[in-house]
């Protein structure tokens, strides 16, 4: 099943086309690694797929349930919210206003897997950078995505968490999720069987 299809997509900041005539087709169970130097447009591509940037031209089809872990969470670190409250928001969808029992179970499950369950009731401002990263990963995973977009998810993770994350990813790939992951770490590329690498280049016009 197709989870994402981009056809000649163009994404611009102002007049500068960062993504030019970009085409990509991703099937369920596939892992796409996106690499390339700083400023080459990896985040721009991910934000475009997540629906945060419009395509100037071209076509996009994306699966219904998409989860996204941004490179930098642009939200107030002092926001009065607990870990559990933030993780649960990942289960929200268009047209779905309330959390079900299943949502709560999923949130609990991924908090446990990522080792932040003990922090459930902690305020987010008391967390370390790596712990917060795991909160955002748990939030994305508990939405049971069909397409998962990860923008440098391993930044700030220790070796143990890194291993756990890849374990989780392998499991959801087997369940049919497709994943697009930006990474700078070549050793990531070998960890997953059914995967491809796309290298972004730095010639914007």
């Amino acid at each position: 099943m197709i989870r994402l299809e981009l056809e000649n997509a163009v994404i611009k900041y102002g007049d500068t086309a960062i993504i030019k005539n970009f085409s990509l087709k991703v099937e369920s169970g596939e892992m796409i690694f996106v690499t390339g130097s700083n400023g080459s447009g990896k985040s721009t591509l991910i934000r475009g797929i997540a629906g945060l940037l419009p395509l100037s031209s071209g076509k996009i089809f994306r699966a219904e349930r998409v989860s996204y872990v941004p490179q930098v969470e642009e939200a107030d670190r002092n926001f009065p919210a607990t870990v559990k409250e933030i993780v649960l928001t990942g289960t929200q969808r268009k047209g779905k206003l309330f959390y079900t029992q299943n949502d709560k179970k999923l949130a609990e499950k991924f908090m446990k897997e990522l080792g932040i369950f003990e922090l459930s009731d902690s305020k987010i401002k008391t967390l370390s950078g790596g712990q917060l990263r795991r909160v955002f990963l748990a939030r994305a995973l508990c939405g049971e995505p069909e397409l998962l977009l990860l923008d440098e998810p391993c930044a700030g993770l220790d070796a143990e968490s890194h291993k756990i994350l890849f374990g989780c990813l392998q499991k959801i790939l087997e369940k049919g999720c497709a994943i697009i992951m930006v990474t700078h770490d070549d050793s990531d590329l070998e960890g997953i069987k059914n995967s491809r690498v796309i290298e972004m280049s730095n010639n914007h016009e």
Partner: protein
Amino acid sequence: MNEILEILSYPFVIRALISGSLISICASILGVILVLKHYSLIGHGLSEIGFASLSISSALKISPMIISVPSVIAASFLIMLTKAGDTAIAVASSAALSLGIIISSLTNSISNTSSFLFGSVLAVNEADLIFSVILSFVIIILFVIFYNRLFLITYNEDYARSLGINTAFYQIMISLLTALIVVSGMRIMGTLLISGVIILPAVSAKNLASGFKALIIISGVISILAFLTGLIISFIFNIPTGAGIILTNTIILILTRAIKTK
């Protein structure tokens, strides 16, 4: 004590009590979102546009709602949807304030102008009361239904959009409700002071609450406490209602700040 009982026997006082309490609670709930989203100035901008529209309608001798409802709503959409910065809001609101003052001083008595600016309990008529009861009911219901969404959107709008949620709808909802609260609260609280009624309880509550839900509840409690105390103060010392309420709110803010740092 006897004095208070005597005051309570006036129908206009009862109207002001009911209407003011409901508006206070709803204003402070909306205030939580506005404060967390760093839109604290929006209420201020809107209320000065409200003042201009009050002055105009009083000069034209028509019901204030006819002009103030559409103009304040239009202004709120403009501010929210264009994500107008502090500077734009400050410019627009001082322009509206001066326009209001000019019209008001040409056509009104000083005491009328001052009651527009600083509030008066005498201002609540029966139609205002009904309007504020319905509005408060609607706001509370919307908050219950959309609680999870509002939490998500207040925390991170981009993330909400990546989930396919129509964030513009909620922005419009918040700006519309803010506009209506400003309009319905501005005569009792005063156009210059209604923005404080919206913002101050949320700022105080932020010093005490740990989560979003607690913040909303504490903010509502503080707001109604400040309203009732402020109302009594304004009766006893014969000062404008809005000023009494804001004074109480300010004292509460200082107290909660002290508790927090302790």
